[in-house]
């Protein structure tokens, strides 16, 4: 059996779990998972791959919306299938009874446990407004093809 060059699949999941540190890392206070939040951004904002931390710039505002957004449910940790590691929040992200009158089209998921609120990912969708209503962001299927966050 020949050797095979590879980025080890488990290492991809381990990266998601913070078990590798090629650069200066942080002293973690506990072995528990981090808490994540989801903040909404106006269509005029410029969220994207260049984001490093959560920012209030361009964030939506309105009735019953608290700056910083809402908690993301992460009951299920990263998994692997084939050579892909993947992670998907385990419940929909819901903003209940809000009024967001100015159009928004993006959500930033960020690490609320980290001191600087490290950015994780930005997801875009068609522009929306909400009037005395509920915005529900339902997650894709948590698998190697569709999982919200993947390292392939």
């Amino acid at each position, binding site marked *: 059996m020949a050797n095979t*060059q*590879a*980025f080890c699949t488990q*290492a*991809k999941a381990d*990266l998601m779990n913070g078990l590798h540190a090629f650069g200066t890392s942080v002293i973690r206070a506990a072995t528990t998972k981090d808490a994540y939040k989801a903040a909404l951004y106006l269509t005029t904002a410029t969220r994207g791959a260049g984001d490093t931390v959560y920012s209030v710039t361009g964030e939506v505002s309105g009735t019953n919306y608290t700056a910083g957004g809402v908690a993301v449910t992460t009951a299920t940790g990263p998994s692997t299938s084939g050579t892909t590691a*993947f992670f998907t929040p385990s419940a929909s992200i819901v903003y209940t*009874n809000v*009024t967001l009158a100015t159009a928004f089209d993006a959500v930033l998921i960020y690490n609320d446990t980290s001191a600087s609120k490290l950015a994780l*990912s*930005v*997801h*875009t*969708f*068609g522009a*929306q*407004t*909400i*009037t*005395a*209503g*509920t*915005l*529900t*962001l*339902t*997650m*894709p299927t948590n698998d190697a093809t*569709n*999982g*919200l*966050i*993947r*390292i*392939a």
Partner: protein
Amino acid sequence: MITTTHGEMDEALLEKREGKVDNENEHTTWVEYWLDGELIHRSAHITLKKPVCAFGEAAKLGE
């Protein structure tokens, strides 16, 4: 009863409008309730389809 900008209102008194969009990035539905030409409720349900993906690769040495 529907939550509106005027408080809880009987759905039967309101004009209901619905819409959806389905593309490679999202499946979205929304519902609006109007009263005398005024939008008094709008909710949206977005299902995200497109994951964000990082590609990990181990370099071959000596090439």
